[in-house]
């Protein structure tokens, strides 16, 4: 194989580089698979340091209470207990930063000081010889804490009530943020439309649920602090620790050894990381805390807890004229940085999905309650919004007698509309929206016919179909989420003396296969074999500063930064090779793993020879050339805006993937049992680097979407705000028995502004299932008058909807 590398852009990305014959587009097997399959991958929980002590956190059993007193005496008296710390001991540690200017400030301390606002809130830390003793001692601290219980706010309506108990005494209400929106064109459309209806749509509280829970090990040796943490953003954790503990950033090293899933939940800056770092310095001994599953369910961020009060204006022919929407997001107590406010802005911005629908007015409101703080979860607000939009379209179809597919056809984005500016300012740069939907609808039509035939003899079973056309904002800005960091990422490429390539990245791998992808990119760019590329990530001392993996950004930022760094390496390497070939560097090309003069039979100069000259035999370098062969690229995605304009609009994502989902379900009327008969995904993330890994992303994300559509639900007592879950007996994720076989097909519409035309692909699969499954169940039960307006749709929820529809029918 010959790779002709154009080297024309020593300071930037050449957007014309679109190799499809080499490593880009190849389903290279994951190099990351061997160690986990053999049980040898080393996670934070596998670290054992000499003299290491165990930490257990004492967590609030109260949803809302003042801490009157804590007696640490009984716990300290227990043999094996080294220390018990409370907020008073951490007085020297600062609060988490308040950087997001558009929300009310929440003063969050690493350990709750005098008030707890959710069950699971950490308010003391026990250090002991082992975790068993630490938990015994934590139980003693808990029993020796005097709380004064305050009225709890558990339900959205209750939180919004005038006389609601306040979580924060200095606030006039429980609104963390409230952005009233009013568009004159929407008002006008409501005046002109034939009809209107109102409805409330509810998405339930969930979490990312990584297989590996969080974990932190911290050690301080001679003032050099090392923190191993299962975090998606090691550099951001380092900055936060240095800032809060008041130590120079170079004296902090944060390492992500390997990750067993993050899904957004591990993007946050958690109190445990800060407390462990502080204890390690305080005691001068390594300490470890491994989150158990109960802790994971109550103290890692929740998500998706939204309610949408909508008002829809439509005409007799099914034309939807305008939608007004109050989008409420229950963000829990808001006490984990960064709070989950940005998700509802993404919901508001992307609610129209793959449809040309400008007359959308959304008012995002974030409400605090006495529940676990909310934050990021794969999909980040998009599944909630798409669920609302598709339910609206289906309702209008039902009210007007319009065909559901035809109605969508009338609204869907067309290729000649690209780039399409959404109601929110989102710039959908390109896509295959219309043809993707046609393909998905065609695929599922056959499935529908098969399912109808299968149940033809069973009058208790009905079959239905559901659709979704989404856009996935990928490679977004972090500035609206964090108020601090923005959007770039980095790569450093070094060619070692033997010619082997080392790529160090600010991106991290959560299990997606980023290491394999990075090796493919570097191999393509430098004309080497992927096996000759070593990839380094997740270590602030070994990799350049970067923002980590979230927002489906890895593929785009790695492509950009790796190609930038590779460009720079190539320019220098070619000069060295040209010197050796006694040729002009313009005449030198890279082919078959070496440099030679184009069109000549001259012998090749290998990467090893060039790199040896750069690092060792510098006498072989052109005169005056600086030694070394290591270059960095810091890639700021083009087209990405970090702050809204004067009109409040913003293109907060660098590029927009799209997809069409369609599914067929069967529903048993008598018991409400639902079976997904078939599921089809037509997906487009632009140029594909590794199609197999992309299929994996789609499969996994659809599974998590099905979790949201049918299973996972954090329920709280509506009076006390006590969680009604403690384990996987209550919080039900779908297993392989519940996730159906699915058809996944791809279109590749390159991102016009991004290097290689790559778009992100991590989250899209989560977006469709809530819309599709609720649409299909509603379709199946349409003649019973059922129209599902809330997730998860469970057998009990189906039966309740059938009863309610029957009661409505009897009343009317």
């Amino acid at each position, binding site marked *: 194989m010959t790779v002709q590398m154009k080297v024309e852009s020593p300071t930037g990305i050449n957007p014309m580089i679109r190799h499809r014959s080499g490593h880009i587009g190849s389903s290279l097997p994951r190099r990351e698979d061997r160690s986990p399959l053999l049980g040898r991958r080393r996670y934070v929980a596998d670290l054992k340091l000499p003299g290491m002590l165990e930490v257990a956190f004492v967590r609030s059993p109260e949803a809302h209470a003042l801490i009157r007193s804590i007696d640490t005496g009984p716990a300290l008296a227990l043999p094996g207990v080294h220390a018990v710390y409370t907020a008073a001991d951490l007085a020297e540690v600062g609060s988490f930063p308040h950087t997001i200017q558009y929300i009310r400030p929440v003063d969050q301390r690493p350990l709750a000081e005098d008030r707890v606002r959710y069950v699971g809130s950490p308010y003391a830390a026990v250090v002991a010889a082992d975790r*068993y003793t630490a938990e015994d001692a934590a139980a003693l601290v808990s029993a020796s804490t005097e709380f004064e219980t305050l009225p709890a706010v558990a339900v959205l309506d209750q939180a919004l009530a005038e006389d609601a108990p306040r979580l924060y005494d200095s606030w006039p209400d429980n609104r963390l943020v409230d952005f009233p929106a009013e568009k004159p064109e929407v008002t006008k459309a409501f005046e002109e439309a034939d009809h209107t209806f109102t409805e409330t749509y509810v998405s339930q509280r969930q979490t990312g649920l990584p297989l590996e829970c969080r974990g932190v090990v911290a050690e301080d040796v001679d003032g050099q602090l090392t923190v191993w943490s299962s975090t998606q953003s090691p550099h951001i954790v380092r900055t936060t620790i240095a800032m809060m503990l008041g130590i120079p950033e170079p004296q902090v090293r944060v390492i992500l050894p390997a990750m067993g899933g993050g899904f957004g939940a591990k993007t946050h800056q958690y109190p445990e990381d800060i407390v462990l770092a502080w204890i390690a310095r305080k005691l001068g001994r390594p300490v470890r805390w491994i989150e158990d599953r109960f802790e994971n369910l109550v103290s890692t961020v929740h998500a998706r807890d939204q309610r949408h009060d909508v008002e829809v204006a439509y005409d007799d022919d099914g034309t939807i004229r305008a939608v007004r929407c109050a989008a409420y997001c229950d963000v829990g107590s808001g006490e984990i940085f960064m709070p989950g406010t940005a998700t509802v802005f993404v919901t508001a911005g992307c609610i129209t999905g793959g449809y040309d629908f400008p007359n959308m007015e959304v008012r995002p409101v974030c409400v605090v309650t006495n529940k676990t703080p909310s934050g990021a979860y794969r999909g980040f607000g998009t599944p909630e919004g798409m669920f609302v939009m598709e339910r609206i379209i289906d309702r209008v179809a039902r009210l007007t007698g319009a065909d559901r597919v035809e109605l969508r056809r009338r609204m869907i984005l067309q290729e000649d509309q690209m780039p399409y500016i959404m109601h929110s300012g989102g710039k959908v740069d390109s896509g295959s929206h219309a043809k993707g939907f046609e393909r998905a609808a065609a695929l599922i039509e056959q499935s529908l016919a098969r399912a109808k035939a299968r149940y033809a003899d069973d009058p208790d079973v009905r079959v239905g179909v559901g659709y979704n056309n989404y856009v996935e904002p990928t490679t977004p800005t972090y500035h609206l989420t964090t108020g601090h960091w923005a959007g770039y990422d980095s790569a450093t490429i070094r060619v070692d003396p033997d010619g082997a390539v080392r790529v160090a990245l600010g991106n991290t791998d959560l299990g997606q296969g980023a290491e394999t992808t990075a090796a493919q990119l570097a191999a393509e760019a430098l004309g080497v074999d992927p096996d000759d590329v070593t990839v380094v990530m997740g270590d602030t001392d070994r990799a350049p500063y970067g923002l980590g993996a979230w927002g489906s950004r890895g593929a785009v930022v790695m492509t950009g930064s790796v190609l930038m760094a590779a460009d720079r390496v190539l320019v220098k390497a070619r000069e060295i090779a040209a010197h050796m070939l006694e040729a002009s560097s313009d005449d030198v090309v890279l082919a078959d793993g070496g440099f030679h003069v184009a069109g000549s039979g001259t012998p090749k100069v290998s990467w090893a020879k060039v790199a040896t000259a750069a690092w060792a035999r510098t006498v072989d370098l052109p005169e005056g050339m600086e030694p070394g062969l290591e270059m960095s690229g810091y890639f700021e995605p083009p087209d990405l805006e970090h702050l809204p304009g004067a009109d409040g609009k913003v293109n907060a994502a660098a590029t927009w993937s799209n997809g069409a989902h369609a599914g067929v379900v069967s529903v048993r009327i008598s018991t409400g049992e639902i079976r997904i008969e078939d599921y089809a995904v037509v997906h487009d993330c632009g140029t594909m680097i590794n199609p197999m890994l992309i299929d994996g992303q789609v499969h996994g994300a659809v599974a998590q979407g099905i979790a949201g559509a049918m299973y996972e639900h954090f329920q709280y007592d509506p009076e006390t705000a006590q969680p009604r879950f403690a384990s996987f007996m209550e919080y039900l994720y779908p297993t392989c028995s519940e996730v159906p076989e699915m058809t996944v097909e791809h279109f590749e519409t390159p991102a016009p502004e991004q290097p290689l035309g790559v778009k992100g692909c991590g989250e899209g699969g989560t977006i469709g299932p809530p819309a599709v499954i609720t649409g299909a169940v509603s379709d199946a039960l349409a003649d019973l008058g059922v129209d599902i307006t809330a997730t998860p749709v469970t057998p009990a929820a189906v039966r309740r909807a059938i009863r309610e529809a029957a009661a409505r029918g009897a009343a009317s």
Partner: protein
Amino acid sequence: MKPAAFDYCRPASIDEAAAALASSDSAKVLAGGQSLVPSMNFRISQPSLLVDIRDVEGLDGLEVDQDGVSIGASVTQSRVMNSDEAYSAVPGLRRALRFVGHLQIRNRGTVCGSLAHADPAAELPALAMAAGARLTVRGPQGERTAAADGFYLGPYWTGLEQSEIITGVCFPAEAPGTVTVVDEIARRSGDFAVVGLAAAFDLEDGSVGGARLVSFGVSGRPQRLAAAEEAVRGFHAGAAGDGLYGAAYEDAADAVGDIHASGEYRREALGSLLVRTARAVSASNGGKAGAR
């Protein structure tokens, strides 16, 4: 999620095990540990002593003869499920066990452990009642037997005294003309039932002569459905199901609601499940096929 401190012993004989169990008010028997160990990790259960009976001689027997299937206290669920002899004598066992957890759980979990634990949503206690199983119980006063029907008093509450061990259970062989089935609605494969039914139908010429019907997952314990057992007499594949549905709905008047489903859902679904099961069994005309 670590258990509180406890002592552990692993006796070799049933006498030693019984003595160990009697030595402390909060000693617990450990067999497969699939329910006990999680509850200890949550510190819901804090026994002072675990008496591990897996090495106790004489408890590992799985015997099948013309009278039925006898299962010792340390016999795993997988072993029973995989026994073709046990299936042929008592088909209900395999039909119940396929719903019990997942493979890994059944590889450790024991039949007798599940019977002793008495989770109200567990399959095996309900099957034991429907099938007329008898438990052998060893206590300080010696050995006794107890019918499964009547043994279950409430959630995790049986007629077993603190110092007693279930040493075995005997399921009588399914009589000719009887069809035993187990079916359930669970949120996911392998979960405890939201609504479950264990039923032994006595068929006469394609209609139901009589039946022992037991619900599980519906109320606080596995429960005989008295009205439905009356209503099901004479039921056949072509019969209208309304009467049978209504009887089961009334039998389940004390159905409980939880985060997975309301009590009303459980009453409705139990009625539907019973009608669908009775129809399938009647239609199969006494064959060995299960309801699904």
